[in-house]
């Protein structure tokens, strides 16, 4: 057995208790969600979006938690001492952990999907026998691509989170980065949208498409429309955001492997100095939000944002003594605030 197989099979075995627990909880949640229609519609109406809502919810939860659980051992110096000398290259280790997390996500999600599918098929059968109303003409032909789409977006989100957590020095920083990346692009998109609206008459997209979970959350509604209209009812920006998240997901796989491979064990526990971390996220998020807020109407909120950036830097540096670059970034807040005055 090669070192990769040894390491991967060990990690897989080690994850089994965790996987069983997550699978059980997820299945319970799916069962509860699928039965919501009984409570909401007294068993006379079958809503595809309500019955299948558990699936995007479970996928999002898995995408958030699995990278944390999978990478937590690598954010602990003591654990690194017992892992990093093993006769397995870091490249193989990174791939093994990526795949291990992926196996957990895919297996739990498919289990819940299968349950949902059987439930839907049974209900549709029941509805054909009794007087009832099905929201949309349901077909297995729609359910399979629905599951595949959620899975693909889920894998993209999982990959992005694996990358951002691996860029962090501590698990807490990793979780903070997860949060930043979840909404980060939304605020940047919102700022760009506001700038465009301020200087041109262009209004061609919804910034909400750039919230990391948006493609998954919107899928039940897209599929509902697809079933009714028998064609996709997507805007150009929907397609753009789908492609963008896909590209980001693929890039994140390589980013994760590279970051993991280059990770210095001695830096674990130290402040997160990655360019993909606080260093970039604090000013980018801060400035984007400042641009999006109308300064003339809400100067207080702008000041609050500067304060939030300051707190962000304190968290980043783990000290109230900030670096010169941090103060420069804070002082530069005047520029997005000024820009906000012009565009709004």
């Amino acid at each position, binding site marked *: 057995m090669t*070192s990769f197989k*040894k*390491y991967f*099979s*060990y990690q897989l075995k*080690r994850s089994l208790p965790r996987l069983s627990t997550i699978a059980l909880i997820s299945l319970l949640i799916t069962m509860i969600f699928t039965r919501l229609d009984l409570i909401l519609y007294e068993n006379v109406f079958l809503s595809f979006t309500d019955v299948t809502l558990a699936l995007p919810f479970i996928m999002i939860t898995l995408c958030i938690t699995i990278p944390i659980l999978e990478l937590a*051992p690598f954010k*602990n110096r*003591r*654990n*690194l*001492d*017992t892992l*990093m*000398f*093993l*006769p*397995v*290259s870091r490249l*193989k280790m990174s791939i093994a952990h990526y795949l291990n997390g992926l196996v957990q996500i895919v297996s739990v999600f498919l289990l819940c999907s299968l349950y949902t599918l059987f439930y839907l098929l049974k209900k549709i059968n029941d509805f054909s026998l009794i007087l009832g109303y099905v929201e949309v003409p349901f077909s297995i032909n729609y359910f399979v691509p629905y599951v595949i789409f959620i899975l693909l977006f889920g894998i993209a989100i999982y990959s992005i989170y694996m990358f951002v957590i691996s860029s962090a020095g501590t698990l807490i920083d990793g979780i903070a980065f997860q949060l930043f990346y979840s909404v980060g692009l939304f605020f940047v998109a919102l700022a760009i949208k506001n700038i465009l609206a301020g200087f041109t008459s262009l209004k061609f997209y919804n910034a909400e498409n750039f919230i990391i979970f948006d493609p998954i959350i919107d899928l039940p509604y897209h599929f509902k429309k697809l079933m009714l209209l028998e064609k996709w009812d997507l805007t150009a920006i929907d397609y753009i955001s789908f492609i963008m998240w896909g590209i980001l997901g693929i890039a994140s796989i390589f980013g994760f492997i590279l970051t993991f491979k280059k990770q*210095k*064990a*001695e830096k674990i526990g*130290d402040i997160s100095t990655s360019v993909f971390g606080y260093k970039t996220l604090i000013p980018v998020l801060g400035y984007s939000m400042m641009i999006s807020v109308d300064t003339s109407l809400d100067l207080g909120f702008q000041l609050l944002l500067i304060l939030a950036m300051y707190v962000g830097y304190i968290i980043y540096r783990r000290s109230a003594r900030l670096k010169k670059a941090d103060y420069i970034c804070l002082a530069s807040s005047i520029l997005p605030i000024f820009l906000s005055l012009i565009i709004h």
Partner: protein
Amino acid sequence: MINIKNLSHSLGGNLVLSGVNLQISDGTIMGLVGINGAGKSTLLRLLAGVYFANEGVIEYDGKSPENEETREDIFFLPDDPYFTNTSTVKSILNMYKQFYPALSLDTYNSLIDTFKLDENKPIRAFSKGMRRQAYIAIAISIKPKYLLLDEAFDGLDPLARKRVKDELIKMVEENNSTVIISSHSLRELEDFCDMYTIIDNKAVSSSGDISEKTNRYCKFMLAFNDSIPSDIFNGLPYVSITKSEKFVTGVFEGDENEIKKALLKLQPVVIEQLTVDFEEAFISEVSKNDKL
């Protein structure tokens, strides 16, 4: 053979090791000695491939520890190994068994019996010494070509220490293994290490045969009828002095006969030569460099 050339490494911007050069032959038990923060654990982590050196080279028979095949021959036991709430000795053994197929279950079972450890009990329920025993039992059972032990004797009772030493010596004799062991208990190292290395001021200040090291120093106790002046040993190559009203003990560096001749000129009532152990030699070495 382990060959360390011009090894330098920084932690958090602080230079911890600078220009370390060392050669360790196969079949050697080497004691790694140094004051707290000297860089012993960092050196072991670099040797184990946990850290990658900022500068310099580490080679195991000409191969880097970053090489996967080289690492198959290395086992590193840190001073505070990680375990989860559910880890048992058996679960940890099973993990290492996958990566080190040469692991001897006979040796493991024998050591676990000697240490009277319940291999199915969670490690978190063990005392510090018991945890240490469990990990050492696994490390020795693996019989690696290169065994790196950080503060291995910390928390072990005298019986367990003796058993561990015996097993380490046996492992070296049978497999021509090389053991590098860091310890603060210098007396522990003296009776079973072949070689020592003192890490001081970020570099190797001294390295070599333990008996040669202790032979460099001699220790004399002198008694006088009158009170002893504070500058009694001035002009002599002493490295430490312990003085009461009429007794004085000194550790000296140099030829013991020459030093004894010089001491006799002080006309003591009694002069007696005492044995210098490795710990005294180490303290003398470090004191000489004003590190204590």
